[in-house]
């Protein structure tokens, strides 16, 4: 390449956040994809127990979509708590109770903050140094995932500059070489593991998500290990019938977990509404610092999420949730 004829001024760095951030390594991510993702059409259907023991490691950076109350991958989150994973770093974006739940259950010690409920357990953990929080926003977190999902080291963004979150983040303010104006860039986020609840998936991981979402596709493409839990396992012929409905392609996916009502007590739009009483119970538990009893009652008392649904929730409650969700248009391919 010819170097520019007139020697160019380098790009000035005007300010840099000093927060710790998950390491940026696009080439290392590529090597992981090459060596670990399965590009063959080999079934990867397994139980939540197997998926979590194989693909969630202590110390992993974990992202999940959307949250415990809204199409959350709750069967897998319960299994993570059951297997007592440790020292997780959470992508705490657009989420309410999940961070408190995982911190309270002793699974997480770090969180990037877009938004999550700062409950007593969070307050205490931060004060006692058992939880480190790094400051972002919902959109900055999903744009970091977008950078990770594009295989690039950073993205320019139009928000975040000027905030104190910036100071406690991995962002930088630089002079844009094209306009000469200041622009913020944020480091790509490539989580170690993403956990995503889909409406439908085939055994290879081709997944369909209906309705709205936060950053399902970005998280799936950006993460080294991807666990898809799905309300329904459908045939690959059905996937091929409407390729436009595929949200996530199989080669990004490591594990597929069949998980009907897997977002309980939250809603899975188009499939079932929430269980309002149980939603208020988890809210109450995290706000009033009663996470241990909640975990005992709802998680560790059972070997599997299905057992929880069977023994504690029961068929008629689940059918009532399904009955209450009357929206169907747009929630099928």
């Amino acid at each position, binding site marked *: 390449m010819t170097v520019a004829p007139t020697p160019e001024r380098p790009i000035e760095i005007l300010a840099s956040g000093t927060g710790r951030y998950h390491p940026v390594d696009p080439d290392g991510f590529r090597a992981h994809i090459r060596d670990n993702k399965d590009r063959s059409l080999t079934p990867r259907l397994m139980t939540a127990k197997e998926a979590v023991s194989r693909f969630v490691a202590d110390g992993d950076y974990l992202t999940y979509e959307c949250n415990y109350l809204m199409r959350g991958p709750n069967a897998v989150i319960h299994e993570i708590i059951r297997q007592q994973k440790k020292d997780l770093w959470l992508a705490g974006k657009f989420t309410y109770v999940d961070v408190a739940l995982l911190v309270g259950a002793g699974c997480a010690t770090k969180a990037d903050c877009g938004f999550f409920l700062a409950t007593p357990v969070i*307050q205490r953990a931060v004060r006692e140094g058992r939880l480190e929080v790094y400051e972002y926003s919902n959109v900055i977190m999903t744009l970091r995932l977008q950078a990770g999902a594009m295989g690039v080291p950073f993205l320019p963004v*139009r928000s975040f*500059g000027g905030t104190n979150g910036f100071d406690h983040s991995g962002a930088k303010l630089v002079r844009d070489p094209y306009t000469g104006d200041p622009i913020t860039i944020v480091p790509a986020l490539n989580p170690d593991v993403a956990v995503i609840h889909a409406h439908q998936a085939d055994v290879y991981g081709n997944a369909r998500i209906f309705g709205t979402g936060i950053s399902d596709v970005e998280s799936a493409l950006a993460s080294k290990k991807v666990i898809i839990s799905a309300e329904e396992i459908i045939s690959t012929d059905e996937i091929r019938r409407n390729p436009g409905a595929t949200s996530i392609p199989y080669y990004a996916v490591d594990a597929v977990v069949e998980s009907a009502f897997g977002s309980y007590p939250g809603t899975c739009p188009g499939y079932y*509404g929430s269980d309002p009483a149980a939603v208020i119970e988890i809210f109450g538990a995290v706000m009033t610092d009663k996470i241990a009893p909640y975990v005992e009652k709802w998680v560790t008392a059972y070997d599997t999420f299905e057992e929880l649904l069977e023994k504690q929730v029961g068929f008629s409650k689940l059918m009532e949730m399904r009955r209450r969700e009357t929206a169907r248009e747009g929630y099928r391919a």
Partner: protein
Amino acid sequence: MTRAEAFSEREVAMCTVARMIEDGRTYWAAGGGTPLYSVLLGKKLYAPDAQYITEDGVIAPEPLLPFEPMMTMVASRAVYRALSWGTMNSAGIHAQLGHMDYGVLNTLQVDQHGNINSTVLGEYGAENARRFGGPGGADTIAACCWRTILITDQEKRKFVREVDFISSPGFLDGSPGARERAGLPRDTGPWRVVTPWAVYDYFDRRLRLMARVPWVTTQEILDECEWKPLVADEVEVLEPPTDEEILILRTELDVRGQTTDAAGAWITWDGEKYVRAG
């Protein structure tokens, strides 16, 4: 439209914002509480062609109200009959492109330059600091919408000289071009702050009291500001809520009173004047 004779303070704030909603403008609403209900109220009564985008990128839904508890986003009733569904990034990107006229949000603390704190009260990292939820979508709303409408309560501790932590940007240090120097889009920024008692605008990028409700005096408002804002030469007096506004709020929007009863005093008409029972 007849004046209502009994309503809560939160209801007053939502009615005040509702009257600011304009036809043909887009409103990016943070979360699902008072910002969303204020926009919906304005759309129903005053600006049927106002369009709103949910924090997570759903364009112009016709929501099925009421919502289940907490189910104000993603859930099918909240995104019902939208023109387009979306994601957090589609919303953020449309805002970066300039498609969002107004951002509507609420906060814990605001300062003289409209900077917003939703992260921490006290010194960040200090023993006694109290942590909150973080900016959520508000940072991008405050950065990228052309104008922002901020809803908060009229409390001393909420109106400060400098927020403890800038979670979402106002005019930053208040100097001309401060936002642009920080990489934020040109010509954007805070526009109004609305409380149950008052409406503020900005003069030279500094907060200015511009209107009050009939039942509180300018002095009472200033007493509830730890840092005193500028005061307009003419402090306009706001019309109280109407029966129609209150009826829609209670019967169609916030039927559980989650936002309206949540806090604040009650205002009643004693036959001669409005009285506030704190």
